[in-house]
């Protein structure tokens, strides 16, 4: 009997707490700053896919990407995806990634282990293994963004370490960080350039 009422009391208190929490959230916390306030899961990243906001070549220069002196002038009709400062990582798809790559307007960060990096990576990418990024913030701070947006990637599939690394980078003050979820496997399969074993970090 005694334990029955104990269990009932526990259920009562927990239910009360949960109800208050949900109620309080319903009353107005949603939409406040930060990424954590929607009811159902917060997707870690928002998908920009290939529909990334694009700047037409003849449009007025806008955003840091088009200011990049290293970027070769894009072909007449080609648009360069713009990764703005969203305060959180955004996802971009293969096509947008390739456009940024072609324009030289992006810094790739490879979140995989160093041996995987050595076996092949997107040319020009910097290797910042996940384990190092989350245990040693200094490694993230050392990343020289050079005015470009950052695109992190890893081994594709359900590999989430590129997202975690993106958050770490934002955490140390980097901005305009995107995640390429297709990762190296998709890039390689698409027949795009691959670089091997360049020491770069």
């Amino acid at each position, binding site marked *: 009997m005694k334990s029955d009422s*104990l269990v009932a*009391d*526990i259920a*009562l*208190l*927990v239910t*009360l*707490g*949960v109800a*208050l*929490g*949900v109620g*309080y*959230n319903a009353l107005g*916390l949603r939409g*406040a*700053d*930060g*990424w*954590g*306030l*929607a*009811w*159902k*899961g*917060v*997707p*870690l990243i928002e998908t920009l896919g290939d529909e990334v906001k694009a700047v037409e070549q003849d449009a007025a220069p806008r955003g840091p990407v088009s200011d990049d002196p290293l970027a070769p002038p894009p072909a007449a009709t080609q648009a360069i995806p713009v990764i703005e400062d969203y305060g959180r990582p955004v996802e971009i798809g293969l096509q947008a990634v390739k456009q940024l790559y072609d324009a030289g307007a992006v810094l790739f960060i490879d979140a995989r282990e160093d041996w995987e990096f050595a076996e092949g990576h997107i040319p020009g990418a910097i290797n910042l293994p996940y*384990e190092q990024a*989350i*245990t040693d913030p200094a490694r993230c701070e050392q990343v020289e963004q050079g005015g470009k947006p950052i695109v992190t990637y890893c081994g594709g599939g359900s590999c989430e370490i590129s997202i975690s690394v993106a*958050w770490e980078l934002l955490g140390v003050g980097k901005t305009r960080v995107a995640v390429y979820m297709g990762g190296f496997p998709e890039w390689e399969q698409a027949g795009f350039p691959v670089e091997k074993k360049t020491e770069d970090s």
Partner: protein
Amino acid sequence: MDKLAHPGLVRIAGIVIGLVFVFAGLGKIGDIAMFAAQVHNFRLTPVALENLVAMTLPWVELVAGTALILGARRRAAAWICAALMIVFTLSVGQAAARGLDFECGCFGKGDASRVGLQKLFENIGLTVVALVATLQRRR
């Protein structure tokens, strides 16, 4: 055990742990977004559930803590606190074991304490206090 179950001691343990939980709950409620990010840091909850945990957990803490201080449904509240303390201790332990280093968010905003051994021992201590608060002298 009977000595530990001394009503005065149990009551004091309840008030201490109740105050800790009320402060911890209020601190988190003050900045839910930050707490949600900290829940994420522990990497224990499925991403889809992180927000629900962040929005409800502090309130459960607050309710249980308040009940303990007031002495209403005292044993139930104490068991909730004890169970939560065990969960928190395991969370901190696994994070420390994985070498994760981040603010634990245990008391919400402004609590800069980081996950680590010290936090682990604090939590173990609080767990013991919470367990004492659950005691009841046999009649």
